């Protein structure tokens, strides 16, 4: 039982991470608020089951992933209002803008990777969570985790190239 740190404390301190994770998982900006609230309800309900010796972010990612997957199953659709947004090909005026563009490109490219593989890619290559923990969080065999990662990296790279090309052409 986590008496010292409440579910609300965790939700508050990891709020930015949760919102970004939802975007990485393909949630539209307009739906982030609904989904982040749903994450809190799940987190609060299951808080007594959380093992505080485990890192919190993989645990939160697992909840976020299930919320997003559940929504996807429910709605049978996954859309993004940013998919066709071109990436500017002109040189950035400063480093900040470059970072913003890079983030946008990452989110758009991630949307082209199927959700189960995208989750592995985000957890491992962005959140830098060890593969064993990734597999545990997503309830998949370790081998499947590596297999998904390999495919996801290829898909992601192809998506980045396609988006870059699209930007240059437009």
């Amino acid at each position, binding site marked *: *039982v986590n*008496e010292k740190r*409440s*579910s*609300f404390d965790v*939700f*508050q301190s990891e*709020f*930015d*991470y949760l*919102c*970004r994770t939802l975007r*990485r998982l393909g949630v539209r900006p307009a739906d*982030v*608020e*609904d989904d*982040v*609230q*749903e994450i*809190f*309800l799940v987190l*609060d*309900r299951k808080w007594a089951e959380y093992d505080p010796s485990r890192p919190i972010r993989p645990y939160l990612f697992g909840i976020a992933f299930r919320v997003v997957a559940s929504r996807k199953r*429910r709605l049978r659709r996954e859309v993004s209002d940013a998919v066709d947004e071109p990436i500017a090909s002109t040189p950035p005026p400063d480093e900040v803008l*470059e*970072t913003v563009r*890079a*983030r946008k*490109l*990452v989110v758009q*490219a991630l949307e082209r990777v199927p959700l189960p593989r995208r989750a592995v890619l985000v957890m*491992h*290559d*962005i*959140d*830098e969570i060890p*593969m064993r923990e990734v597999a545990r969080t997503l309830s998949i065999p370790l081998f499947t985790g*590596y297999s998904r*990662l*390999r495919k996801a*990296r*290829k898909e*992601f*790279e192809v998506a*980045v190239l396609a988006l870059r090309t699209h930007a240059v052409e437009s």
Partner: protein
Amino acid sequence: MKRAPAEPTSPEIERLLAAERDVPAAAPDLKARALEHARVAFLARRAAPTPTLVRSGRPWAVAIAAAMAVATISFAALRALAPSAVVPAPSSTNQQNASPPAPASNTAGTKTETLGPREQIRNDPPPSGSSTGSAAPRRSPATDAHAVELAILQRARAAVASARFSAALEPIAEHQRRFPNGLLQEEREALRVKALAGLGETEAASAAARRFREKFPNSVLSPRLEAGTPKAP
């Protein structure tokens, strides 16, 4: 980072992924709203047994509606803060069986929605032969603390609502003493402003309002507070 035994990624992809690793801050207004909703839901679960929720398209909205039905201190504070509102104190301190609020009582400007036909909250009946009280779930020390916080501020809220402003200061002081950083400190400070304003302590009310704004810059209570606080000469 030690790479997993998969195909290596190109330097460009590595740079992109690295840029994404720093988490940007969420929009402040989104954060303020979401945290306030979460806080109310958090308190509700600790103040009353969890109602059984019928699934809907927006389960969190249903839960927040339930939250409003059982742990309404935030919204009670808002009602108390309304410039012309002198609402009667609740006839019973047991809020657990309260009905979901009517739309008009949703004064917080939140996204909480009225329950539709598919979004009914079902409070499971107590076991036959048992009293309502005997069916209460086991509570943790933290849960008890939240319940005590609620009870203290309910007294303050009721006093403010019935224009007994000096009577409100005692529970406010008690809450300050026992829970200086409690979950309901925001509501406590809002009630303090209202009580001081009601007593005609204009300068003290303005100072308290200023401190409130500094400490809770994104509070949903701020607009009401602003409207109901007299300006210090």
